[in-house]
């Protein structure tokens, strides 16, 4: 069953390329030096040892419509193949889904002032999503300082694929991003960013069930488990602060350091630290090696096992205490107005007392290994 679907994935990659070629075709009658166009395409392949595979081809085209103003269109498809619809309890047979996303964005950028407004629609078997975003960037102090502010609102409707949409649920999210970037010296740049997100509405999985096991019996077998629907709070406020520094050590060597702190009203606290080094072999070829470490505490209502029913109960492993580490290698090459990027990432995740169901018993989940391969090609015309 998987092999033909993989064939379908690559057919879709080819389709995305065809869309890009068509966009070029539309632009062909115009002289190249008048186009003011940018086009890009790529594919990412994600795979982990938990049976999840996602293949994501995408295309992007941007066209200048008048001085300083341009329109950008994006298309992306995710082909998702997972061991089970809820990835945790194996409550279903192997699961396939296709997520399609289309976006349109208007961009204005002239004389140190930039603004953008965009709309994105995405759909999959059990979700419809609309996102609108507005943002502005301003440069100050002879372009040594840049500030930007972006607001986005997302309106989602989601539910179980087994149910009519009339029974689905609503979810609304508001997101504010504020960024400040300062040139520290001729060789160093520092960025500070704050993200605030407020999510209201249905945030559980419509598929996931939570085992409820009385304390009087052996906790780690499913024989005595009553299964109840996952219940997450309807409101979540998330805060993230990011600090990133970039330093040129020489004409060839560059260092990048990144830290992100995160807290939310569900009790999750997370820290991300990343260190990367870039080496320019040639003015047109550079390689970056980076490592990212991630640590997260569990949500306050998350338990390895529940013995009585609570207002909120979860089996979402994203809400479990965990650590993760990943290493990424990026090769970037430029030739005239073309740029190609190849990325390979290998990662590892460990969950703190998160149990999965194996042969009727709840056993600690094994470490997860993740691999991502990405390739992208872009051109300015």
């Amino acid at each position: 069953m998987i092999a033909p679907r993989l064939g379908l994935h690559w057919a879709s990659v080819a389709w995305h390329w065809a869309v890009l070629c068509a966009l070029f075709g539309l632009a062909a009658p115009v002289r190249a030096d008048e186009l003011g166009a940018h086009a890009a395409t790529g594919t990412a392949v994600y795979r982990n040892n938990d049976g999840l595979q996602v293949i994501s081809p995408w295309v992007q085209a941007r066209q200048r419509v008048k001085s300083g103003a341009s329109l950008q269109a994006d298309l992306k498809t995710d082909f998702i193949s997972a061991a089970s619809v809820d990835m945790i309890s194996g409550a279903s047979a192997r699961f396939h889904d296709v997520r399609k996303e289309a976006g349109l964005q208007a961009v204005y950028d002239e004389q140190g002032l930039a603004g953008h407004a965009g709309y994105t629609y995405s759909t999959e078997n059990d979700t419809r999503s609309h996102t609108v975003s507005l943002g502005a960037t301003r440069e100050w102090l002879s372009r040594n300082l840049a500030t930007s502010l972006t607001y986005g609102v997302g309106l989602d409707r989601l539910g179980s694929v087994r149910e009519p949409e009339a029974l689905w649920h609503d979810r609304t999210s508001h997101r504010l991003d504020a960024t400040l970037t300062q040139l520290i010296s001729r060789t160093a740049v520092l960025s500070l960013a704050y993200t605030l997100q407020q999510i209201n509405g249905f945030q559980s999985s419509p598929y996931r069930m939570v085992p409820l096991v009385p304390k009087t019996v052996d906790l780690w077998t499913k024989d005595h488990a009553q299964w109840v629907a996952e219940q997450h709070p309807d409101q979540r406020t998330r805060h993230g602060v990011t600090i990133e520094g970039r330093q040129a050590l020489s004409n060839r060597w560059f260092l990048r350091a990144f830290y992100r702190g995160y807290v939310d009203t569900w009790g999750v606290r997370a820290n991300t630290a990343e260190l990367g080094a870039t080496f320019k072999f040639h003015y047109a070829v550079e390689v970056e090696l980076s490592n990212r470490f991630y640590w997260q505490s569990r949500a306050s209502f998350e338990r390895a096992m529940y013995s009585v029913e609570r207002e909120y109960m979860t089996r979402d492993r994203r809400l479990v205490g965990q650590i993760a580490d990943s290493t990424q290698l990026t090769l970037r090459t430029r030739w005239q107005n073309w740029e190609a990027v190849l990325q390979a990432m290998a990662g590892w995740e460990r969950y703190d007392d998160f149990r999965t169901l194996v042969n009727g018993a709840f056993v600690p989940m094994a470490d997860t290994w993740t691999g991502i391969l990405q390739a992208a090609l872009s051109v300015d015309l």
Partner: protein
Amino acid sequence: MLAVAGCESIDNPRYVPPKPNYGQFVTFVQPVLGRRCASSACHGDPHRSLKLYAVDFLRAPPEFAETPLDETRLTEAELTWNYDAIRNRLRGVTSLNNCKLLLKCLPLDQGGIRHGSGFEIFASRDDPDYKLLADWVDWVLP
């Protein structure tokens, strides 16, 4: 700074599920479950998330049944298990039209939703067994 943002743990009190009438469950609902839902290929399969005990099908393991099994009737522990399993699925139900437990038993053209087994349990809302279940659920609706 983020810690000051008020992101402490949220209250998570014990949830008390709806309490439909237990006596009516034993008298009216359990026989329907035994007839229509609890066969070995359906919810009498011990690996189902909704596992139901019935006299002629799945019985509780001895350490759970508390009393010796009687071939003609369920033990109190088995009945309580079934009662809890059903009422746990009534959380958030505000009307018979959003009660997934009932809708899954109806054909799609009668307003039902897809049932895992693909079987239509009741031909319509006029089925006497459906009416017994619906009346019992209706008793706890707001």
